[in-house]
């Protein structure tokens, strides 16, 4: 028998039992649809993360932190006595360090991370946020994507850039309307009055904190997207000001409780410095040079392997869920095929009487199984795609209200599409082994007597 005849016979036989074929194929279709949706979601998330990281150049950044007191103590106890006698040089993250680091081969730029808490008031709404000091150069680089307005000038002490997300939280929907508007920024500063002998008792008792607010007025010159969480490495806040503006402001630069416990020496410098290298291959040598100076480093690329492991687990979990559906579908295929054999018992006898070999009969049922898998795969892929697209549209519709840009949460790489068709065929063929062997074993003499 020719392969084309096997395929034609399979479609023809399945057409004769339309409802049963439809129901069995639907089982495979739903299983494959679920598997495709879940795997494409997993792929989509991975693709989005890695693509975003690449787009934001995150793999090219190293963040440098001063070594904590504790880790320094650990290090010195591990060293021998001779070394312990030496004075531990704690490297401060200051402008000298930045200049020194910029000279290392592969380093493109280095900039301090200066952030301080503040309260912003705009059009009657107020929000707490962290304000970041960002040089005008970075503001002008491609990292900051403006939705409206422009970057500030290096010496501009009265302008700021705000994120579209923060604006939206303050009920401003059109970024353009915010440009040129005044915005109030209040910083925290130590209140010397409260620290006077007359008031110190209430501070000690915890009734009051020794802080007061200092207000400043800025003009919004730019509204940018993808800042704060999910933004590029140096853009970790929702409000940016130029160094010139920072200098004029009275503030306590505390971003976390850890800042309280910094040594006085460390406190002189920045809490962190971001370094951009020109290529990923410079990450390791630059990190090594900086760590030699007794500083701590962090690079996103180091986390990539860990992220990949998480992705593998996520894929396995999604795959396992999909496989449950596929297993149920394959049991349905076995059931359908066994039913088909019982119904076509006499027909199998006729096939053998007119010259079909056991192998021919086995292949006829095997191909029928495979065709169910093929149909289930093709329609399952279509179903998975449609469902994914719907979820994607709905998710983006709701996230757009929170100023989250449009993202494809699902990805359909070629291997997923191909696998969605081939995999159910293979599963169906496996499910068809038992029914096909059973059909081949049918005794023609008994089958021909069958009514």
């Amino acid at each position: 028998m020719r392969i084309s005849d096997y395929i034609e016979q399979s479609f023809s036989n399945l057409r004769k039992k339309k409802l049963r074929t439809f129901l069995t194929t639907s089982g495979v279709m739903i299983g494959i649809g679920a598997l495709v949706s879940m795997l494409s979601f997993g792929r989509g998330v991975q693709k989005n993360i890695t693509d975003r990281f690449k787009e934001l150049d995150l793999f090219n950044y190293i963040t440098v932190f001063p070594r904590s007191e504790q880790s320094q103590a650990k290090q010195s106890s591990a060293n021998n006595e001779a070394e312990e006698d030496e004075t531990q040089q704690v490297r401060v993250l200051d402008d000298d360090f930045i200049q020194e680091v910029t000279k290392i081969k592969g380093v493109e730029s280095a900039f301090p991370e200066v952030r301080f808490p503040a309260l912003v008031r705009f059009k009657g709404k107020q929000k707490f946020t962290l304000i970041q000091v960002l040089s005008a150069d970075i503001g002008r680089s491609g990292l900051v994507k403006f939705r409206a307005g422009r970057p500030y000038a290096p010496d501009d002490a009265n302008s700021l850039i705000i994120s579209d997300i923060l604006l939206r939280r303050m009920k401003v929907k059109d970024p353009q309307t915010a440009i040129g508007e005044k915005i109030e920024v209040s910083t925290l500063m130590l209140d010397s009055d409260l620290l006077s002998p007359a008031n110190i008792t209430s501070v000690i008792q915890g009734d009051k904190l020794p802080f007061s607010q200092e207000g400043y007025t800025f003009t919004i010159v730019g509204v940018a997207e993808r800042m704060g969480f999910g933004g590029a490495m140096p853009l970790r806040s929702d409000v940016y000001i130029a160094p010139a503006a920072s200098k004029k402001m009275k503030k306590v630069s505390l971003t976390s409780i850890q800042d309280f416990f910094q040594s006085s020496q460390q406190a002189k410098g920045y809490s962190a410095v971001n370094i951009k290298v020109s290529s990923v291959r410079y990450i390791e040598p630059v990190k090594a040079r900086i760590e030699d100076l007794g500083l701590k480093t962090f690079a996103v690329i180091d986390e990539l392997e860990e992220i990949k492991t998480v992705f593998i687990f996520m894929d396995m979990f999604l795959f396992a869920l999909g496989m449950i559906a596929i297993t149920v579908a394959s049991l349905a295929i076995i059931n359908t095929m066994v039913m088909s054999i019982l119904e076509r018992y006499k027909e199998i006898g006729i096939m053998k009487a007119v010259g079909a070999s056991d192998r021919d009969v086995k292949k006829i049922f095997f191909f029928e199984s495979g065709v169910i898998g093929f149909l289930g795969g093709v329609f399952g892929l279509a179903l998975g795609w449609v469902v994914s697209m719907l979820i994607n549209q709905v998710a983006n519709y709701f996230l757009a209200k929170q100023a989250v840009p449009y993202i494809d949460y699902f990805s359909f790489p070629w291997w997923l599409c191909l696998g969605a068709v081939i995999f159910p065929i293979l599963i169906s063929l496996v499910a068809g082994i038992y029914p096909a062997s059973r059909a081949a074993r049918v005794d023609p003499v008994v089958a021909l007597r069958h009514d």
Partner: protein
Amino acid sequence: MNSTSFIETEDLTKGYSSGQIEVVALKDVNLSVREGKFLGVTGPSGSGKSTLMNLLGGLDTPTSGRIKVQGKFISELNKEELALYRRYQVGMIFQSFNIISSYSALENVAFPLLFAGVGKKERKQRASQMLTKVGLCPRKDHRPPELSAGEQQRVAIARALINQPKILLADEPTGNLDSTTSRQIVQMLSDLNKNQGLTVIMISHEESLVRRFAHEIIHLCDGKIVEQEKIR
């Protein structure tokens, strides 16, 4: 064994076990049929006629003894070789026609060609020619429920002959037909025997009908040949 025989059996025995009971359907049957002959097989129900037919048709294998067809011992063939024997050397027709009710007359006749690896176009062409020979060409697209019993049996004959076998085995072909149609069908088998030199072995209850057309008749009883008669 006789070298001039076309079909020959030697101590052919077939037993079945039904639980602990052993049933012997055929016992030491020795038969010889020459090429181009029409052999009639008669006997009461349960005498082993159909068992003999299934063994000669390669649908079943003997418990002991040998079957030789055209010089080949078919009782020694494996399953694949037996399938080829059924496909090309022997055609079978049955009392209940055994045609597929969901297929048209044309598809039923073309069915054996599918296993012979014949292309779709040629299958249709050859099946159509065969249906013309049995006088059913105008009914080729009809399904078995739309055909009379006689027409269905003619479809079965056309299907049995589609691969041009040398032997035609007919197991009670007139069992479900009225007397007129029965005569027409046996006449058709006789014509095939005379005009095309087809060796025909036909089982029938109606001895008078067999006697009209067969060259030789054997009578089976309890799995044994009890009488062998040359008519012409």
